[in-house]
């Protein structure tokens, strides 16, 4: 018998059991069962209190799971853009979130001034952010491509401040929200069929806008994944990421690939922005949250790994939502950071990354 064969399921089982233990310990009133006047056996008392707790909070757990996965898809899309840029250019683009903020405002203007639906607006936002990415690369990144890494880091940090302050000047800090006039109650899906929104699963709700954000993120991720895997451009991108000189030596214009990759990575946040604005108002620092999670996800999923980005996004979204339930009163990001540190310690190459 090989112990290794069972190691995975054993560890998995232990994790699940300890999670349950933590959940009960932190949430269920088990101390009452230890009181002298408590009736019956301690274990059955705890079981009873647990089921009472679940009767009230089961819906919360389901909601947290659903919400975590839905927003996790968007996190994954943002991280995908970041991880592509990192994979090819080997720069950590701190301005990624700020560029997403730009996307939010573009989506807002399209809706507010031109009356263009944000989902239709994807066909404008995504190409526009792609071009903005190209310009940012040409003007900011390319001139510094031979500079030391920490200088590039500072450069993208500076760009972030510049973008935030420009947005502040032009739009002020007033949160800019849009409200779709569909997607609540009976909703006609492309004239094909009618669906009731929000969807309810055992009383946990999925709203139209979040479902669309999730599905949209999956579709964009799938499209990008196909491009990366199947097309010549994708091959050139992967080749450049793996061996820059080698790519140059087979005739790939690596400068051009850099620029295109930066554009595609930025287009990702353009898509994310359009998908998110219906439920997350735009303000000059709105992208920060997505920036932070994207960095963690990129490390978590493995640098330059597309599937890892999506998986990492879902994990982070879930963790963030569930932390508050498993550990009431503790900051949501604590759980995320714990996972972050564990991955750094035990799998520094990321969950799906190849060992260096």
């Amino acid at each position: 018998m090989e112990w290794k064969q069972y190691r995975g399921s054993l560890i998995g089982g232990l994790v699940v059991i300890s999670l349950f233990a933590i959940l009960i310990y932190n949430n269920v009133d088990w101390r009452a069962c230890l009181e002298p006047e408590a009736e019956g056996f301690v274990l059955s008392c705890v079981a009873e209190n647990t089921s009472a707790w679940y009767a009230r909070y089961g819906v919360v757990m389901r909601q947290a799971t659903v919400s975590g996965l839905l927003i996790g898809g968007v996190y994954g899309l943002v991280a995908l853009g970041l991880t592509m840029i990192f994979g090819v250019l080997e720069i950590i683009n701190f301005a990624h979130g700020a560029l997403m903020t730009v996307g939010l405002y573009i989506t807002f203007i399209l809706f507010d001034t031109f009356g263009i639906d944000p989902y239709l607006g994807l066909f404008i936002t995504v190409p526009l952010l792609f071009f903005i990415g190209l310009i940012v690369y040409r003007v900011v990144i390319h001139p510094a491509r031979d500079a030391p890494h920490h200088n590039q880091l500072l450069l993208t940090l500076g760009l972030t401040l510049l973008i935030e302050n420009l947005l502040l000047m032009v739009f002020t800090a007033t949160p800019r929200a849009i409200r779709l006039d569909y997607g609540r109650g009976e909703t006609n899906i492309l004239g094909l069929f009618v669906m009731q929104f929000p969807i309810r699963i055992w009383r946990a709700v999925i709203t139209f806008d979040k479902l669309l954000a999730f599905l949209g993120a999956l579709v964009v991720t799938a499209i990008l994944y196909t491009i990366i895997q199947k097309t010549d451009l994708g091959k050139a991108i992967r080749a450049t990421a793996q061996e820059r000189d080698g790519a140059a030596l087979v005739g790939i214009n690596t400068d051009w690939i850099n620029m295109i990759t930066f554009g595609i990575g930025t287009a990702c946040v353009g898509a994310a922005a359009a998908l998110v604005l219906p439920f997350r108002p735009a303000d000059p620092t709105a992208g920060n949250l997505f920036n932070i999670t994207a960095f963690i996800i990129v490390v978590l999923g493995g640098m330059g790994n597309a599937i890892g980005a999506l998986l990492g996004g879902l994990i982070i979204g879930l963790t963030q939502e569930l932390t508050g339930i498993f550990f009431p009163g503790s900051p949501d990001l604590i759980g995320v950071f714990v996972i972050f540190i564990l991955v750094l310690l035990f799998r520094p190459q990321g969950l799906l990354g190849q060992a260096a």
Partner: protein
Amino acid sequence: MLTIENLEAGYGDVKVLFGVSLEIQAGEIVALIGANGAGKTTTIKTLSGLLRARSGRIIYDGQDITHWQSHKIVAAGLIQVAEGRKLFPRLSVLENLELGSFLRKLRANRAKNLKHVYSLFPRLAERKNQIAGTLSGGEQQMLAIGRALMSEPKLLMLDEPSLGLAPMLVQDIFNVVQGINDDGTTILIVEQNAVQTLRMAQRGYVMEHGKITLSGTGDELLHDDRIRTAYLGL
């Protein structure tokens, strides 16, 4: 076919090449030998456009390519098999070879060239779906040469193709190089294996501290006393 005049290049503040000049005629095999750190790899990198020349000129096929970008140089048929191979470690053997014919004008002949590479290195055909990073050193060298051949080189530059290979394999590689030359491809080869290289080469250059200090036919160099003591260990 290729003329280098007073080429200077380096890394950051470090200058490595101090006015290198050499010449290669079409159809030749030319050897470039020299001690470690002399600047051989630097020369080849500059020829490929991976490194910018600081001064001097590179004339290839009658064109001044000194400031061309590397992809354009590749398109012109000046191909290099790099020191350290520079393969795509997480792509398969086949994908590596296919990338060798990345340029549009090479696509048409891709199948034909692939067949040719497989005939030269049957081992690559057997392992075409294996991930390049997991190949043995010898196999990786075959793949590197194979990938370069996919680019239909007019002038093939090989930087230490025998590095780290078993003696048997070294001979194989030399045979292949000779074969490539026989098919009409001009060759510039950098090697530690000076005796064998100079025997194969029509002409050779000796590089020291970023300068060409000696040149001649392969035979002349093989019998030059300075070379015999310095590089051939004879």
